[in-house]
């Protein structure tokens, strides 16, 4: 058995594909090409885009969307959606803001409490989806509205306003700010620490998806849940982990925003849940699950962040962003459809 095949596995029945063509088939490459085009366009057409200040602005913007997009991409590969992901960034930040400024809870403890609540909501989403078999789209839509309502109502009830004030005066704020809200000089830019979190999270997610058992299970439960169950994949555990990861990422982004600007609005994150999904799809995720990549989703977020800021730099009407977003999504879905057909999935 050992001598039958040469170590370099080549077979005359496999057409030697051009490495360039083979590369184009990877889920994230289409998005990378688009990102490069957008980068070049705004670099050449606006003054501010390529300046150190400009770069750090769109990198920061991309990083916040990117962390969520990567988490949502993993969830989508696992065959589920989470529409409560955006509101979750607001909920977690509001919890920390309210209990530290109003009740004087220790700031470190408040971080743990808000993370625990986020994870609990994620687990709750998973539990309802898995036990009832209802589409996660509906279940998390409900969670989204519940969180949105609570964010506004409870914040108003306790603080009397719809925003958290006086975060900066909370003892220990500066220490936590180092972790979530600081920035550091890099190549003349003032890079926000959230960019580091984004890159680290994307790398970790890629590692998990491609090189661990859990990653194999994520692709399997999204691709063909009954098959995965039949061969002994812990479906419930995998999906619960995914929902909790998404909620946990919502907490991270909530903290990154809160400690950057020292305030949080009760409406934070509302309406962003679809942007995460769009970033993931632009990055090569299939809406039907079982296929996609974390790096692709990160690139999808980069495209969004660059466009968001590029449009501002170019002084266009901000509404063009939405039209652009729709166009990108349509294009990405068409490319995905093509890829799926090329993959030749039968039956």
């Amino acid at each position, binding site marked *: 058995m050992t001598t039958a095949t040469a170590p370099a596995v080549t077979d005359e029945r496999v057409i030697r594909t051009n490495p360039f063509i083979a590369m184009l088939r990877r889920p994230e490459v289409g998005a990378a090409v688009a990102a490069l085009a957008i980068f070049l366009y705004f670099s050449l057409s606006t003054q501010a885009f390529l300046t150190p200040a400009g770069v750090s602005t769109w990198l920061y913007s991309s990083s916040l969307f990117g962390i969520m997009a990567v988490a949502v991409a993993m969830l989508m590969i696992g065959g589920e959606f989470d529409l409560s992901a955006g509101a979750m960034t607001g909920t977690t930040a509001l919890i920390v803001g309210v209990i530290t400024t109003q009740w004087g809870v220790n700031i470190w403890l408040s971080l743990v409490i808000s993370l625990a609540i986020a994870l609990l909501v994620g687990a709750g989403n998973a539990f309802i989806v898995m036990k009832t078999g209802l589409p996660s789209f509906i279940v998390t839509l409900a969670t989204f509205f519940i969180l949105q309502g609570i964010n506004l109502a409870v914040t108003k009830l306790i603080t009397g306003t719809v925003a958290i004030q006086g975060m900066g005066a909370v003892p220990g704020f500066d220490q936590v700010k180092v972790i979530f809200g600081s920035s550091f000089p890099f190549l003349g830019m003032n890079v926000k620490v959230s960019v580091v979190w984004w890159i680290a999270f994307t790398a970790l997610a890629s590692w998990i998806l491609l090189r*661990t058992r859990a990653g194999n299970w994520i692709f399997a439960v999204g691709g063909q849940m*009954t098959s995965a169950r039949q*061969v002994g994949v812990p479906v419930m555990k995998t999906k619960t982990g995914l929902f909790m990861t998404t909620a946990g990422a919502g907490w991270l982004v909530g903290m990154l925003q809160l400690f950057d600007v020292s305030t949080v609005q009760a409406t934070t994150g509302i309406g962003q849940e679809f942007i995460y999904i769009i970033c993931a799809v632009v990055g090569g995720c299939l809406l039907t699950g079982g296929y996609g990549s974390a790096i692709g989703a990160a690139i999808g977020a980069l495209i969004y962040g660059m466009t968001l800021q590029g449009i501002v730099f170019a002084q266009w009407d901000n509404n063009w962003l939405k039209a652009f977003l729709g166009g990108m999504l349509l294009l990405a879905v068409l490319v995905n459809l093509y890829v799926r057909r090329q993959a030749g*999935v039968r039956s």
Partner: protein
Amino acid sequence: MTEPIASAAPPILEVRGIGKSYGSIIALRDVSASLGVGEVLCVLGDNGAGKSTFIKILSGAHEHTEGTLLAYGKERTFGSPREALDIGIATVYQDLAVVGLMPVWRNFFLGSELTRGVGPFRRLDVKGMRRITKDELAKMGIDLRDVDQPIGTLSGGERQSVAIARAVYFGAKVVILDEPTSALGVKQAGVVLKYIAQARDRGLGVVFITHNPHHAYPVGDRFLLLKRGTSLGEFAKNEITIEEMTRLMAGGAELETLAHELERA
């Protein structure tokens, strides 16, 4: 398990008067059969004969409500497919339990992945899994072009064979095949029959469910005939001819036309 079995050794799998009812519906009643090492037990029956119920009992998907199920001479009741799997009874379902978009090697090891390293550095042994997949498939006589291609791109027969090879590699002593040839063309079905013979020659017990006597007869050692939820008997190969089998399965009325049809095939 490797030494030749003495004639007194109990069969790997045996059922005595087994039955299953769902509420007031009797799906299966009083079926007895046995399977030894290196044997192929063919379960034949027309649609609705109770074949599916029978394999669901053997594979642990449903518990039987009557009779006894013995594995290695010990009485058992399987609460889940996992329990059956743990004592070496693997089922290859009609949908093959594969994930179409995933590469062949990831499918081969799905749920039982090989890893290296410890703690947070525990990672998939990608090289090892690729190599073993290629080797194991070669042992079944499948020479795969590329184990990295999505399994959805393989032909039905090839996918069937990958599923069998996977069951064998993971220590199955008994492989239950649910209609593996029903969706296949003549040539592909022949390929799968060859793999069944190969698995048998490697000392496995094979339960082969089919409604086609022409597929069953060449590879089968014993034949269990089901009709309308009950057994028409279990026969050794020398006790029954293919014509008799067909006649029993189909019943008198349909015999004329069926025989006619088969002769021309």
